[in-house]
C-alpha cells in the first residue's frame, strides 16, 4: 500500500472528526491537487461518513416524502398575503417537517411557531426571515440530539465475553474487598515483592541496589513503548521531586498509543513473522491488534478473535493469523496456537509422545489440530480498477472460511505405524462427531473455561519475561508439566489475579513494572552472585537482566534519539511503520518448517552497525540535527559542552562521561584548526552522535 494514499485517508479521517490542524489542511490540499485518484478517495471516504450521518440502514428519503405531501395540502389552506412571505413560510413548514420526520421526535406544531415568527417579514428583509428559519432548523439536525442511546451502550457492554470483570480498584470499596479476595494494584505489587524476596532469602542472595532514575526511565520507555525516552521526557522526569513520579510515568506509558503500537508490533511478529508471506495482510493484522491493545480488550477475547476469525483478510485483520499457518494440514496453526497462547511446545509430539512428559502426548496434539480441520482459505478475485491490468497475487485478498468436511475424525500414525483417530478435544471436552458447532469457535470458548487458565498463565509468563529478560520458565513458551518453574507460587498467583482482573493487560504491565525487583539496577554489584540465568541457572530476579534491543526497538530509538536531540517533534509512528518494516526485514529470514519458523540475524553489533553505517536516512537525520544544535539561537545548547550534554541525553539518557567530554573537546579543537573551521561544531556533534548510536550501550536494554 502506498504511503501518500494512506496519508490521504488518514487526513480525511482526521477532518471528519474535526481534528485537522492548519498544516495538515495544507498537506491534504497538496495531496489532492491534480490527483484524480486521491480526490475520489477523499470524496468516497467522506461519502461513507455522510451516509452514516444520515442513517445508512433505512432509506429515509422515501419515508419523508409521504407526510411531506400531506403537509403541502394543509399549507395550501392558509391565507397568505405576500408571495415572498409565502415561500418562506412554505419552506419553513416543509423543512421543519422534513426535520421532524428525520428525528422522529419533533412535534408538528413547530411549523406554526415558525409561521408566527415570520408573519411581518417583507421581501426586503428576506435575510432576517432566513436567519430565523435557519436558526430554528439548525437546532435540529440529527447531530445535535442530546445523549447517546443508553440501549446501544447496554447491548455493547453485555457482549463482553469475560464475566465477573471487577471494578478498577477493589481496595477503595471495602464492602467488596471484605467478601471477595483483594487484588488492588497495591496488594498485587506487595504480593509480588513478598514472593520474590522470599526466594532471595532462601538463596541467601543480596539483590542489586535500586536503579538510578536515568537507568530506570530508559528501561521503562523501552519496555512499555518500545523506544528510548525523548530529551524532554527525561529532563521532566529527572527534574521531578514527586514521590509518585514513577507510578505516574508508568500510568502514562501504559495508556499511551505507543504502548499499543509496540505490543501490536511484537504480536504481529510472533503471529505471522517478520518476513512477507503470501496471503497475509500484515497491515490489517497490525490494525486489528493495535485496536485490541488500545481498547485494552481482555486478552482472552483477543486470543478468541484470532482463533475464530473468518472473512476477508483485509477487512478482518484477525484472519491473517490462521491464514499464515494453514499449510501442511494446519500443523503450523496447531503448533503456533499451542506455543503462543497456551505456552506449550507441541511440535515434537506431532510425531511421538513427549520424551519427558507423560501428559502431553501425540493424541493431544492431533486433538488440538482437529479444531482446525474445517478451516480453509480461498482467494478473493481482486476488484479490477483497470481491466487491462492483471492484478498481481500480492494484491489479492484472501478469505478464511470454514467448510464442513465429511470426514469428522482426524487420523494420525504413531511411531510404531499404528493408525489412530481423534476428535477435537480440549481440557477434557470432546466435540462430538455429529456436532454442528464451528470447531474453532468451540476452541475459543473452551479456552475461556479452561480449568488451568493456560492462556492467562502463558501471557503472565511472557509479560514477565518481557519486563525482566527472563520468564518463570526457560524457554518461556514451554511451560508443560516437565518444565522447571522458577517461582511456581508467584506464577500461580499472578495468573489468578490476571484472570480476576478480566485479563487486563494494562494492569498486568503496571503490576510488574511497579514491583520492587523491577526497580533494581541491571548491574551485578555483588561478587560471586548466584543469580546467573544466562548460565542456565534459574532466574531469581535479584536484578533486571540486560538484553539487546529488538530491531524494531533499535529503529524507533534511533529515530527518537536523532529527532529529540535536534529538538524536533517525534513524528507519529504510523508514518514510519512501512519504512521500519523494510529496515527490519533486512535481518529476517524465514524457514519452511512445521512452525513456519524464521530467524532474526540481529546481534546488535556488526551486522547492525553495517546497516546503520550505510543508512542514508540516519546519515541525513544526523546531519540535520547536528546543524540544528550548532545553529540554535539558544545559547544553552550551542556551547560545546551543552551540545554534548544534549546529545548524550538524547542518545543514552545520561550525562556524558569525563572520557567522552575529553574526546569531544579534542575532536572540536582539531576541527577548528582545520580548513573548514566554521563547520567544526556541527561536524563534531554529528561525530559524537554516530559514536553514541554505534555503542553497545545504545542497543542494550538495561
Amino acid at each position, binding site marked *: 500500500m502506498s504511503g501518500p494514499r494512506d496519508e490521504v*485517508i488518514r487526513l480525511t479521517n482526521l477532518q*471528519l*472528526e474535526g481534528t485537522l490542524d492548519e498544516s495538515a489542511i495544507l498537506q491534504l490540499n497538496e495531496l489532492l491537487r491534480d490527483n484524480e485518484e486521491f480526490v475520489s478517495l477523499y470524496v468516497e471516504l467522506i461519502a461513507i461518513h455522510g451516509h452514516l450521518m444520515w442513517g445508512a440502514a433505512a432509506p429515509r428519503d422515501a419515508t419523508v416524502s409521504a407526510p411531506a*405531501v400531506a403537509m*403541502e395540502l394543509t399549507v395550501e389552506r392558509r391565507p397568505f398575503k405576500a408571495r415572498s412571505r409565502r415561500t418562506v413560510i412554505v419552506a419553513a413548514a416543509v423543512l421543519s417537517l422534513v426535520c421532524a420526520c428525520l428525528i422522529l421526535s419533533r412535534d408538528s406544531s413547530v411549523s406554526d411557531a415558525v409561521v408566527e415568527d415570520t408573519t411581518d417579514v417583507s421581501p426586503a428583509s428576506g435575510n432576517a426571515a432566513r436567519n430565523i428559519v435557519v436558526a430554528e432548523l439548525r437546532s435540529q439536525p440529527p447531530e445535535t440530539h442530546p445523549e447517546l442511546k443508553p440501549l446501544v451502550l447496554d447491548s455493547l457492554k453485555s457482549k463482553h465475553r469475560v464475566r465477573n470483570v471487577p471494578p478498577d480498584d477493589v481496595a477503595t470499596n471495602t464492602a467488596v474487598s471484605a467478601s471477595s479476595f483483594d487484588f488492588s494494584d497495591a496488594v498485587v505489587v506487595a504480593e509480588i515483592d513478598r514472593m520474590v524476596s522470599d526466594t532471595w532469602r532462601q538463596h541467601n542472595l543480596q539483590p542489586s541496589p535500586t536503579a538510578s532514575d536515568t537507568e530506570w526511565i530508559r528501561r521503562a520507555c523501552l519496555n512499555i513503548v518500545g523506544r528510548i525516552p525523548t530529551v524532554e521526557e527525561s529532563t521532566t522526569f529527572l527534574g521531578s521531586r514527586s514521590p509518585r513520579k514513577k507510578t505516574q510515568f508508568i500510568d502514562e506509558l501504559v495508556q499511551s498509543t505507543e504502548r*499499543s503500537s509496540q505490543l501490536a508490533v511484537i504480536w504481529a511478529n510472533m503471529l505471522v513473522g517478520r518476513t512477507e508471506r503470501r496471503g497475509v495482510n500484515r497491515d490489517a493484522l497490525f490494525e486489528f491488534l493495535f485496536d485490541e491493545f488500545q481498547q485494552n480488550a481482555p486478552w482472552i477475547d483477543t486470543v478468541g478473535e484470532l482463533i475464530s476469525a473468518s472473512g476477508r483478510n483485509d477487512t478482518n485483520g484477525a484472519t491473517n493469523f490462521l491464514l499464515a499457518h494453514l499449510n501442511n494440514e494446519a500443523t503450523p496453526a496447531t503448533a503456533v496456537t499451542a506455543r503462543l497462547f497456551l505456552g506449550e511446545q507441541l511440535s515434537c509430539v506431532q510425531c511421538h509422545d513427549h520424551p519427558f512428559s507423560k501428559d502431553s502426548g501425540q493424541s493431544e496434539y492431533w486433538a488440538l489440530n482437529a479444531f482446525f480441520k474445517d478451516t480453509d482459505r480461498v482467494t478473493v478475485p481482486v476488484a479490477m480498477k483497470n481491466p487491462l491490468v492483471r492484478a498481481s497475487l500480492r494484491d489479492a485478498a484472501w478469505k478464511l472460511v470454514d467448510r464442513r468436511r465429511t470426514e469428522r475424525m482426524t487420523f494420525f500414525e504413531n511411531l510404531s505405524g499404528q493408525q489412530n483417530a481423534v476428535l477435537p478435544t480440549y481440557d477434557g471436552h470432546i466435540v462430538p462427531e455429529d456436532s454442528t458447532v464451528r470447531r474453532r469457535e468451540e476452541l475459543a470458548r473452551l479456552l475461556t473455561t479452561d480449568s488451568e487458565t493456560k492462556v492467562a498463565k502463558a501471557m503472565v509468563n511472557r509479560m514477565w519475561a518481557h519486563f525482566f529478560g527472563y520468564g518463570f520458565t526457560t524457554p518461556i513458551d514451554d511451560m508443560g508439566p516437565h518444565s522447571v518453574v522458577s517461582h511456581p507460587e508467584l506464577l500461580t498467583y499472578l495468573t489468578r489475579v490476571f484472570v480476576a482482573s478480566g485479563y487486563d493487560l494494562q494492569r498486568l504491565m503496571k503490576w510488574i513494572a511497579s514491583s520492587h525487583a523491577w526497580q533494581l539496577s541491571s548491574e551485578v554489584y555483588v561478587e560471586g552472585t548466584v543469580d546467573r540465568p544466562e548460565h542456565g541457572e534459574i532466574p531469581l530476579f535479584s536484578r533486571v537482566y540486560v538484553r539487546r534491543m529488538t530491531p524494531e526497538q533499535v529503529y524507533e530509538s534511533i529515530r527518537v534519539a536523532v529527532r529529540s536531540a535536534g529538538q524536533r517533534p517525534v513524528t507519529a509512528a504510523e508514518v514510519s511503520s512501512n519504512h521500519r518494516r523494510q529496515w527490519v526485514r533486512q535481518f529476517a529470514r524465514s524457514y519452511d518448517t512445521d512452525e513456519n519458523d524464521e530467524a532474526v540475524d540481529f546481534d546488535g553489533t556488526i551486522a547492525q552497525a553495517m546497516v546503520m553505517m550505510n543508512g542514508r536516512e540516519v546519515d541525513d537525520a544526523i546531519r540535520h540535527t547536528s546543524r540544528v544544535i550548532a545553529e540554535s539561537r539558544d545559547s544553552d545548547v550551542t556551547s560545546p559542552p551543552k551540545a554534548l550534554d544534549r546529545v548524550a541525553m538524547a542518545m543514552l539518557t545520561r550525562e556524558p562521561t569525563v572520557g567522552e567530554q575529553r574526546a569531544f573537546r579534542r575532536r572540536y579543537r582539531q576541527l577548528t584548526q582545520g580548513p573548514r573551521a566554521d563547520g567544526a561544531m556541527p561536524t563534531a556533534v554529528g561525530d559524537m552522535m554516530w559514536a553514541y548510536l554505534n555503542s553497545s550501550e545504545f542497543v542494550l536494554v538495561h
Partner: protein
Amino acid sequence: MFDPADNIDRARVSSETSSSGVPGELFIREFTQSQRRLYLYILPLVGNSSDADEILQETNLVIWAKWRQFELGSNFLAWGRAIARLEVFRHRRNRNRKMTLLDGNVLEQVAEQSELVNEHLDVRQAALAKCLTQLRVKDRELIELRYAPGANGDKVAKTLGRPANSVYQSLGRIRRVLMECVRMQLAEEGRLT
C-alpha cells in the same frame, strides 16, 4: 461570478407553474427526495457536517425561493446541486477570515468528483448497507455508537472510557474498511466508471 443572484438567470424558467401559488406535489416529492443527495454532495466540499447542514438549509431556502424556475421533468438534483455549489462559495466568502478546508482549485476537482459519486448514490447506499453487515461485531457496535443521533467521537470515547485518539483511530480504520468494501462491491457489479 459566484453570486447567488446569477442563479436566477441560469436556472430554467418554467412557463406553467406561475398559475399556482404554491409548488405542486411533484415538486415537493422531488425536493424531499433530494435532501440526502444534496447533503452528500455538499459534505465533501466543506468537510464537516455542521457546515454541510447549514449550507443545505441555505440551499433549501434558495430552492424554495426559486421554485417557479424549476421545470418539472427536468433534473431536479442537477438544479439543486448547482444551487448548493453556489451556496458553498457564498459560505466560503462569508467566512473568509477563517481557514477553509479546500483551496479553490482543489474544490473544483472535489466538486466534480462529488457530482460523479452523487449520481450513483442509491447503489452506493445499498453497497454500504451490505458492507456494514460484514463488519466485525465490535466494529459495527462502534460505528453504531458514533453515528447514533447526537453522538460524536469525543462522546463515544467518554462513554467507552477510551482515549479519544484511539477511538478516532478505530473509526478511521473502520470507515476505510467500509470505503474499500463499497468500492469492491461496485467494481464487482461493474458500476464503477
